[in-house]
């Protein structure tokens, strides 16, 4: 009620309707790089400490219209060594980090704000803020960093006091309304190239005989006391982060609190210059600056509170609610996700320049079954991974032997120790190590072969294997036959054809290799088979392609069967480079087929 009476009293003076001056709160703006530095600080220095650490903020008075006043926390805010750049003002911040989400959630926000406000109040009452005015733009950053997920929770507070009740009796005026062009030029010259050092955030301004001079804030009382002797006008000045035509930025609140605490005994009215300077093409423009005549609006007896007045200042979140914000930076900081996006990007580059029509999605979605995890299996798996294939299953019954790693590029010496690891399992693990975003598994199983007699004791196992193979083929889109014997290719060839899957064969000879796709015959009707005369001379339709066994005539002669062979023939004896040629061809063949409209 006292306020209302005060306002009424003010009206009696006939100086216009008193209006409460409204300040634009800061919006926090955190650099992407800040979170990187913060992560390092948390890991290397802070660890579990919850001690407050200083953080350097900045704001500017040079924004173009429409932008909210921003308190900017830059990439180097935690280890600021450089001087603030020209045109930007310092804000002293404190960062308090909690170790758990519960602490972050349950910590009393009132207590936090009060502690922060108390520090500010002391800076104001002790006069420290006069010496270092950047304290008036102090802020609190309360955080929790979930470094496993790269989620950062944070909440900014820009502490201010509900004191004094500042009013103005006429709307804020723009600078050209109250200053002449010459005065403005003089003001800008003094602001840009000062004779006496002053804090760019808060200062005093004198105007006399069309000359303006900027002075440090602490000189204000002396300047004003001396002013009435000359015809000097003295202003409280600040670099105003707001761009609005009738509302100054948040920093003015604490400047007025300081004025009320320090000088309200002498003066209750202040001329305030909210300086905004935009530079375009090297020309400074301050015409959108504001001049406000502020009335503390209260009886002098109510000023100078002994106790700290109520404080406020938590920032609203992006939904306009009082609450913390959260930023998920896993896409930019999680190494696995970085690898994933880098791999995708690398593939996309092919589309941008060389092959704009390339459908990478269809390649990536193809589920590949690799029967055989040896020389060919390893090389094909790597090639497929290079193409962006993510779903891959390797089948093999053998273990890694000492001769394998030099040729089979997913294994190392360690895989051979203690009798050797299963190839299928070791290869799947190696793929995951190379690229964690792979979905791959290894199945240890031998593929039943025709002509190999199955004894009574093994019958159950063989039946199981047939069923497993059938399911595996069912669950995949492309089947690669990469075994070292002809016989083992037979069953998957038959199942693949029956299930209408894309089956590809690669087989090695000593210095020759075979790579082919198996034909895919329409199952429904016999009539789909074109008559011989209808076959064009130069191309054979896919439905007329045979399988590995039909095309036996061109298969490398040296591919071994395991029977009636000497040792050099039982093992696939081949020039080492040939396996890479074959693996490369069979992978490219798959990709080429997948791009075809008929597949």
């Amino acid at each position, binding site marked *: 009620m006292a306020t209302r009476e005060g306002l009424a009293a003010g009206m009696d003076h006939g100086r216009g309707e008193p209006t409460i001056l*409204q300040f634009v709160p800061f919006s926090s703006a955190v650099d992407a*790089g800040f979170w990187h530095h913060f992560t390092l600080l948390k890991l290397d220095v802070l660890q579990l400490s919850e001690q407050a650490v200083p953080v350097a903020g900045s704001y500017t008075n040079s924004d173009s219209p429409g932008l909210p006043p921003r308190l900017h926390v830059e990439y180097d805010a935690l280890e600021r060594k450089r001087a603030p*750049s020209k045109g930007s003002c310092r804000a002293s911040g404190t960062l308090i980090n909690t170790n758990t989400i519960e602490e972050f959630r349950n910590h009393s926000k009132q207590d936090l704000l009060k502690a922060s406000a108390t520090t500010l109040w002391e800076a104001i009452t002790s006069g420290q803020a006069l010496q270092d005015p950047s304290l008036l733009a102090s802020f609190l950053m309360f955080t929790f960093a979930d470094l496993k997920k790269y989620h950062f929770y944070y909440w900014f507070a820009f502490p201010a006091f509900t004191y004094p009740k500042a009013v103005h009796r006429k709307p804020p005026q723009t600078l050209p309304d109250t200053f002449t062009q010459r005065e403005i030029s003089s003001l800008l010259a003094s602001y840009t190239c000062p004779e006496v050092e002053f804090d760019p955030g808060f200062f005093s301004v004198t105007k006399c005989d069309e000359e303006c001079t900027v002075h440090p804030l602490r000189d204000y009382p002396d300047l004003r006391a001396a002013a009435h002797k000359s015809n000097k006008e003295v202003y409280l000045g600040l670099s105003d982060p707001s761009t609005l035509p009738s509302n100054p930025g948040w920093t003015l609140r604490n400047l007025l609190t300081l004025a009320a605490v320090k000088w309200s005994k002498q003066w209750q009215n202040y001329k305030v210059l909210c300086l905004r300077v935009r530079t375009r*093409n090297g020309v400074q423009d301050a015409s959108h600056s504001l001049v406000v005549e502020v009335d503390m609006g209260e009886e002098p007896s109510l000023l100078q509170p002994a106790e700290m007045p109520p404080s406020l200042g938590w920032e609203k979140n992006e939904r306009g609610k009082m609450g913390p914000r959260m930023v*998920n930076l896993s896409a930019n900081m999680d190494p696995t996700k970085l690898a994933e996006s880098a791999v995708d*990007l690398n593939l996309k580059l092919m589309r941008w320049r060389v092959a704009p029509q390339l459908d990478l999605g269809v390649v990536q979605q193809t589920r590949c079954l690799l029967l055989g995890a040896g020389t060919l299996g390893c090389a094909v798996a790597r090639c497929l991974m290079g193409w962006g294939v993510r779903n891959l299953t390797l089948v093999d019954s053998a273990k890694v032997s000492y001769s394998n790693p030099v040729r089979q590029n997913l294994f190392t010496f360690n895989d051979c120790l203690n009798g050797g690891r299963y190839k299928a399992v070791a290869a799947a693990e190696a793929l995951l190590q190379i690229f964690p975003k792979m979905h791959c598994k290894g199945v240890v199983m031998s593929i039943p072969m025709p002509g190999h007699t199955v004894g009574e004791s093994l019958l159950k196992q063989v039946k199981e294997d047939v069923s497993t193979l059938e399911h595996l083929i069912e669950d995949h889109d492309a089947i690669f036959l990469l075994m070292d014997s002809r016989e083992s290719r037979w069953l998957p060839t038959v199942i693949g054809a029956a299930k209408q899957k894309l089956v590809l064969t690669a087989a090695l000879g000593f210095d020759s290799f075979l790579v082919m796709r198996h034909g895919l015959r329409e199952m429904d009707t016999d009539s789909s088979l074109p008559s011989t005369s209808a076959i064009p001379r130069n191309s054979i339709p896919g439905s007329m392609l045979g399988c590995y066994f039909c095309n036996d005539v061109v298969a490398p002669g040296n591919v071994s069967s395991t029977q009636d062979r000497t040792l050099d023939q039982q093992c696939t004896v081949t020039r080492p480079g040939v396996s890479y040629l074959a693996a490369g061809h069979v992978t490219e063949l798959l990709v080429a087929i997948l791009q075809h409209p008929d597949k």
Partner: protein
Amino acid sequence: MATITYEEFKIACMEFLESSKKLEDTWKLRTDIQDKDGLCIHKMQCIKRKSSVGHENKTVCKNEEQLKEEEEESSDPSVLESHHPTPFTTYDYHIVYSLSHSVPVLYFNAWHASGQLLTLDEVWEGVEATHREPILNNKWGTLTQTEHPLLGRPYFQLHPCNTAKLMAQVLPQPATGPAGLKMYLTSWLSMFGPPVGLELSLCYFADYQSTQSGCVR
């Protein structure tokens, strides 16, 4: 082909920074990464977001629900309330040297108020329509996301593979001397900057002689 050496690039950058200072532009040297044997100058600018689409943190809202939102602070008449904070985007532009192409390269990143980086699609949304076609037509190289050569973090890059060819058309004579090298850098930037929101004042081209502020037209 108009290429420059790293030494020439350094001279060009220093000259450019000098002009920036005179014009009260905000280009700065990244001193923190300078010693890692690569000069980098950068500029930040903040713009109001054009559209409301691409709302940041769409997916995290669920996680966030576990954080209670406090009761409204008792409303203070001195606060100018805004119910929906104005979204804005901060752009950070870096000029570094490409050893393999012997030309300057423009890297940039853009992020929301929280530090959440814009995706490539969101960056495209921010590109002026008039500039989209030249990029699509590959005249100025391609906009790609790649690792920043000095920071090791993902940044967007306008690929330098055509820069030398393009510069040869713009500057028929090889760039020499500090003024010529500055002209090289500014000409280059005036072509590569605008498509990604970085406008360059024409004053950089004006012969700057007086110390007076103001552009000589």
